[in-house]
């Protein structure tokens, strides 16, 4: 894994050459600024609960755009050949790509700290609840990025990678959250839906830190990274 930093560094800096990354960033900040409107009202409680909720919605579509090229571009341009014939192994590559993309994700989310600063200027904020919300966002970002990376490793088309990971994120995040609000849902499916990403994330946005939730996000992220390593290893025998 000692070669991951070089790959992460290259991946992160490549975002700053890519117009699509800037567009995704602008979209994300613009949309989250609109949702901040709900929180930033006279008389409203000085908390960021609704913006944290909305951010996950946005990330379901933004993260696939950031992660779509991670591996698929290597396949499409053939750079995978020079990459894998350097003395690196598959986990170096996967970890490096993940860290680079996750690094850009933190750059993407960082400006929203400005909202927290604005709130604290005008009201008594619960700083630990906000910090907790950000912890949740960071963990969600890590999981989403690893899912996006996995989808990107399966295809040489960036578009296919983006659509596939957005679909996967939608099904695992938005759908369970939506159906769990339905009264007609059976007990079994209710349990399943409650285990899903959005429900667990909601705890963070309310300021609740549950070790189980943290473990869930880290483990799920690791699973997708592991799967990506396996996809890369299968290439040798193609």
């Amino acid at each position, binding site marked *: 894994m000692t070669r991951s930093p*070089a790959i992460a560094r290259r991946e992160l800096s490549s975002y700053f*050459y890519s117009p699509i990354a800037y567009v995704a960033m602008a979209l994300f900040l613009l949309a989250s600024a609109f949702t901040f409107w709900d929180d930033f009202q006279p008389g409203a409680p000085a908390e960021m609960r609704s913006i944290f909720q909305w951010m996950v919605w946005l990330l379901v579509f933004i993260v696939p755009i950031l992660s779509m090229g991670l591996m698929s571009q290597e396949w499409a341009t*053939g750079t*995978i*050949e*020079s990459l*894998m*014939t350097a*003395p690196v192994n598959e986990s170096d590559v996967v970890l490096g790509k993940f860290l680079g993309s996750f690094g850009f994700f933190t750059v993407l989310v960082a400006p929203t700290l400005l909202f927290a600063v604005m709130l604290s200027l005008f009201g008594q904020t619960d700083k630990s609840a906000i910090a907790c919300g950000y912890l949740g966002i960071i963990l969600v970002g890590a999981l989403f990025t690893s899912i996006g990376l996995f989808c990107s490793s399966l295809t040489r088309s960036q578009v296919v990678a983006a659509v596939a990971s957005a679909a996967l994120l939608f099904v695992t995040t938005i759908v369970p959250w939506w159906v769990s609000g339905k009264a007609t849902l059976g007990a079994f499916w209710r349990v399943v839906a409650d285990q899903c990403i959005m429900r667990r994330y909601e705890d963070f946005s309310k300021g609740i830190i549950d070790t189980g939730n943290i473990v869930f996000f880290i483990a799920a992220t690791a699973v997708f990274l592991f799967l990506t390593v396996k996809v890369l290893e299968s290439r040798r*025998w193609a």
Partner: protein
Amino acid sequence: MDRISFDVSKGQIVGFLGPNGAGKSTTLRMLTCYLSPTGGTATINGFNIFHQSEQVRSNMGYLPESVPLYLEMRVEEYLDFRGRLRKMDRESRRKRIDYVIERCWLTTVRRRPIGHLSKGYRQRVGLADSLLHNPAVLVLDEPTVGLDPTQIRETRKLIKDLGGDHTLLLSTHILPEVEAVCDRAIIIAGGKIVAQGTPDELRASRRLNSRVLVECRGPAKEVEAALSRVSGVSRTEIISDNGDPYATIALRAKDGADVREEAARTIIGRGWPLREVRLEHATLEEFFVQVTANQAMGKSEGKTEGKTE
């Protein structure tokens, strides 16, 4: 690939020659640990490609056929990234980058994004990358494809220069290229080694496979008959006999003998106006076909042996 086996000794430049689809790139990809062979093994610099893949790759520079590069990066930046991947420290990265940039004539473009460079420059960036860590073994897959004649000459010169310090394995489908730069050539076709030897040996066997074309004004049949009596001619063939007064006859000589002068004398002696006498070397494809055919004839025993194996 079908059970190929060869050795390359230290400091040698070995050319890997074959028509398209012969399995050149596949072999190189297996040697560079990009693909895993389903059977057999290889040892490079004493390291096994299966069990010591990382050491193999640390001691090898590889230029893939398509020259894949990150187009958004600058030349210098890309080489720095490759140096980091290879765990070179800052000081040696700086030194080696300066060295390879000069060596591969990249000084004028070192701060340019790779995406803005022409094919020839990209090829040199790939070459610079493969030299960056001063590897013992260099594997170059078709290093001169897509270059202009000047660049081809420069690249061949560079490859020849590198020969002493590095062991080079390069693939090509251009026969003269092998003759110009390599100490030894391995010819493969259909996933098998069909011939190997020094360029001189190759040249000799190519002469065996060359033919002489004679064009004159005269009745084709008679001209052919006259030429077939020239000493040293083993086979004659009428190339064009479409009613016009000119006849073109192809001659094949025994044991690479030069029959041009004798043929010309014969034609002139018979009073047919001579237009052209030309020695035509076998094209690479013909050469392959003939080499393969010779192998099949000469080593039919070996072949059956291979089948029962």
